[in-house]
């Protein structure tokens, strides 16, 4: 009985020693991830808030890209009741405000019927259109648009 217990204890001890010595066993700091070499309890410093680049709109990266917004929109109300973007970008307000008009495709419903107002499917502008910033890609990216690869 006694020798049995000793044997078990020795076996457990051996396994533990082997586990710590084995190459490739995981220890704190060994895990590499996008958040860097930080223990789980530690927090990264918050990244700088990217300032919106006002003025000239940036070029599209590819044909179907929703154009970027060259101004701040963080306090614009877009909900069931109102859409403040339309104050300048809906026809005929865009002529008065000298702002780009919402694309004609946004005045069509799913069946392709022409509407006199923005289609419900296009109501939430910021689902596709975002303000332009100087944010750089987080990971390397070799994307080229189709027409440039031609």
């Amino acid at each position, binding site marked *: 009985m006694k020798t049995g217990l000793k044997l078990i204890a020795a076996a457990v001890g051996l396994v533990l020693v082997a586990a710590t010595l084995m190459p490739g066993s995981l220890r704190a700091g060994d895990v590499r991830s996008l958040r860097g070499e930080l223990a789980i309890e530690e927090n990264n410093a918050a990244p700088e808030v990217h300032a919106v680049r*006002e003025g000239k709109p940036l070029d599209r990266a590819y044909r179907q890209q929703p154009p970027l917004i060259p101004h701040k929109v963080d306090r614009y109300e877009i*909900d069931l009741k*109102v859409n403040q973007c339309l104050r300048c970008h809906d026809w005929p307000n865009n002529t008065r405000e000298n702002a780009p008009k919402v694309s004609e495709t946004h005045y069509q419903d799913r069946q392709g019927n022409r509407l006199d107002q923005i289609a419900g499917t296009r109501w939430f502008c910021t689902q596709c259109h975002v303000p332009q910033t100087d944010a750089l890609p987080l990971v390397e990216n070799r994307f080229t648009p189709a027409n440039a690869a031609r």
Partner: protein
Amino acid sequence: MTTETIAGRRPGALRRLWATLWRPSARYSLAGLLLVGVVAGIVFWGGFNWAMEMTNREEFCVSCHEMKNNVYAEYTGSIHDSNRTGVRATCPDCHVPKEWVHKIVRKIQASNEVLHWALGSINTREKFEEQRPRLANNVWTSMKKTDSRECRNCHNFQTMDVTQQRSRARDRHLNGALQGQTCIDCHKGIAHQLPAGALEAEQKLNESFKKH
């Protein structure tokens, strides 16, 4: 002077009080009476203004859940509530005039709001949203009539340095000043949500002011 008697009848209490008030005092000195009057005046006038200022605080405004859960909740986090400089504009800064006469007029109007608080006219979010187009239009209209007076307690075209503004804001401010526009013409829904149909209501309001 003894109590006046008309046709031998003792006059009524009101008439006697009136007579006493207008009779010169034989007992107190003029200076003493003046002093008492001045002190009483300060206490009453100061007390009146103090009581009025008590109703001019953010805490008073949000003591009703109608204000706290709707407009105040929306105002929280807006540029007038929290910003890089820490300067705040609270409810009365925008909604109560600073000049005394206008302030009194607004405070008398506010008694109607107390009535509707008691009636529970907007005591749910649904009731409030239903009334919001009308309520918002009231505020916009009065702002338009006063040339956005409460905004201009802090913001002024004359002292606004447009060279420090982005081109988009600069163009619009310069153009707006030239055309005689007022703050509220464009700056709606900056501290609170807009009502349903706000853009149409805005155009209607602007048109109605063009005619006059």
